[in-house]
């Protein structure tokens, strides 16, 4: 807070409509609070907290293709092993694509999802998070809602194919995590997607 007083005697004003104080003496001294916070130290404390949270519940973006982050036990099975997460990603196909502004599933998408459902039912030790994404055309908020619609379409389809609803979660990233970064339809078509990310069920 900066205190302001009129130089010409009569009034002492706090600008910002806090108060107008009568004063016959002019230039009344006002107590002034400290404006600048010590952000540095506080931010450091906060960061430490976030880093811990990040370890247990990372805000991870899983589009890693062959580098094995998709699924806790990925390294145990090669892409040839039908029970491996790599097989799910590469052979079954972990993603489906959407038309502009749409969340309905094309025949190709339905066929991919039928394969995903089969795999999930054969491999009950894995759960899935369905991530919905949008291309960069559109506002941030709308794209978040649109990505949620897409993820939900996939979840509902998997459920209709027999996957238990409680094995799946949905999340929307809107336009925050494109996989292709050009600003053309060739990239947009790949970014309008829902990706089924599997991970091993934690043993309890």
């Amino acid at each position, binding site marked *: *807070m*900066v*205190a*302001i*007083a*009129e*130089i*010409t005697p009569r009034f002492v004003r*706090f*600008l*910002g409509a*806090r108060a107008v104080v009568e004063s016959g003496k002019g*230039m009344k001294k006002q107590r*002034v609070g*400290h*404006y*600048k*916070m010590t*952000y*540095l130290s*506080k*931010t450091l*404390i*906060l*960061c430490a907290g*976030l*880093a811990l*949270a*990040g370890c247990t*519940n*990372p*805000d*991870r*973006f899983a589009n890693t293709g062959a580098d094995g982050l998709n699924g806790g036990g990925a390294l145990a099975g090669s892409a040839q092993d039908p029970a491996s997460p790599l097989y799910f990603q590469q052979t079954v196909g972990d993603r489906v694509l959407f038309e502009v502004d749409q*969340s309905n599933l094309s025949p190709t998408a339905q066929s991919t999802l039928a394969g995903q459902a089969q795999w999930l039912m054969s491999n009950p030790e894995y759960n899935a998070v369905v991530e919905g994404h949008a291309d*960069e*055309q*559109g*506002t*941030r*908020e*709308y794209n*978040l*809602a*649109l990505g*949620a*619609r897409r993820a*939900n379409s996939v979840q*509902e389809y998997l459920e209709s194919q027999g996957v238990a609803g409680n094995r799946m*979660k*949905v*999340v*929307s990233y809107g336009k*925050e995590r*494109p*996989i*292709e*970064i*050009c*600003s053309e339809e060739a990239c947009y078509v790949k970014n309008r997607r829902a990706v089924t990310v599997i991970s091993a069920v934690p043993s309890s």
Partner: protein
Amino acid sequence: MMKQFLTLLMALFIAGMPAFAQDGPLRIEITEGVIEPLPYAVPNFVADNAAGAQFGKQIADVIASDLTGTGLFREIPDTAFISQITSFASPVQFADWKAINAQALVTGAVSVDDTGKLVVRFRIYDVFAGQELGNGLQLVGTQDGWRRMAHKVADQVYSRITGEGGYFDSRVVFVAETGPKDKRAKRLAIMDYDGANVSYLTDSTSIVLAPRFSPAGDRVLYTSYETGFPKIYVLDVASVNRRSLNTAEGTMSFAPRFAPDGRTVVYSLTQGGNTDLYRMDTGSGVSTRLTNAPSIETAPSYSPDGRQIVFESDRSGTPQLYIMPADGGEARRISFGQGRYGTPVWSPRGDLVAFTKQSKGRFHIGVMRLDGSEERLLTASFLDEGPTWSPNGRVIMFTRETQGAQGRANLYSVDITGRNLKQISTETGASDPSWSPLQK
């Protein structure tokens, strides 16, 4: 692109009546018309003691940057000065300032008192009338708050000459962006309205989106993925402490905004793929559903009196703008132009809505009246979005992202007349600005 923009400006020029009231006191009427910027001089503030010496030029420079940055004022460089201000108390030689056509003159003195506080005094003169414009003022603050004191002086100059509130002593909270488009790191940051004094409010562990100031500027709502799912948090700016809003497990919540009461929050909540509007009392944590439709309802913003909400919905098939009562109920559509409309924000004066418009492959920031009339597009680019109003409702800040693999987000501001488009310089990429009220 530039040509389009120029055309827009020219159209405004022709449509508006130039208004530069020269009768009576020094005055700029801010209207649609393009006015000749008002020439003014702000000599370095006189140091009243040795400790104040380092501040004299700095303060004058910030005042000049604020005023000239509005596009309404033009600074006369000190190389043109005939007389120098060497004493704050001595009479002003009006003839010398008239001779260089300085219509307004700002003089000041600066010192550090025996408690270490910075003391700034200033006077504003109407040179051609040969008299002071309002009373001189004294500001007392901490030394590291010298920029704020300069902004306060500039706010006084601006408001005395335009008759409207200023906006220089204000802050902007935004998302600082680093890294490539497909791995972009985002963290909340806060800075002065002109880009100075940046500090960070979160780290970049989690994606953070769309911070929004509380009406008093003391807290910030934002969306973070720190649980793995988008969820709304409220952060205290001074302590940087934060907590999440109490939304149900298995839902996603985003696009929060405070009501004018500073206690109620309106936001989007997604459940089963469907996004609707809710509001929550942050004290009790009790939430109320405001819309119930299979369409997307998002980006809500309260009217200044808190009685209505403007929001975005695709219930008609494409995203459009609607206004409904703050308790929910029947909504009326207000956007009827060609294209898609989003992120409406009610103006502080209550008479306009700023929005993002997408049309023919381009994005615009625009304003319209509450009934959708007098729609005016202020900008055009590959991607402009997310307007926020200056405290006095005269300027809009927004995000502009450049095209392509190397695309970067930056903050820009533009007057609601469509004039004076400029980038706010930031070290990192920057998006999702929210402008604070004037500081106390």
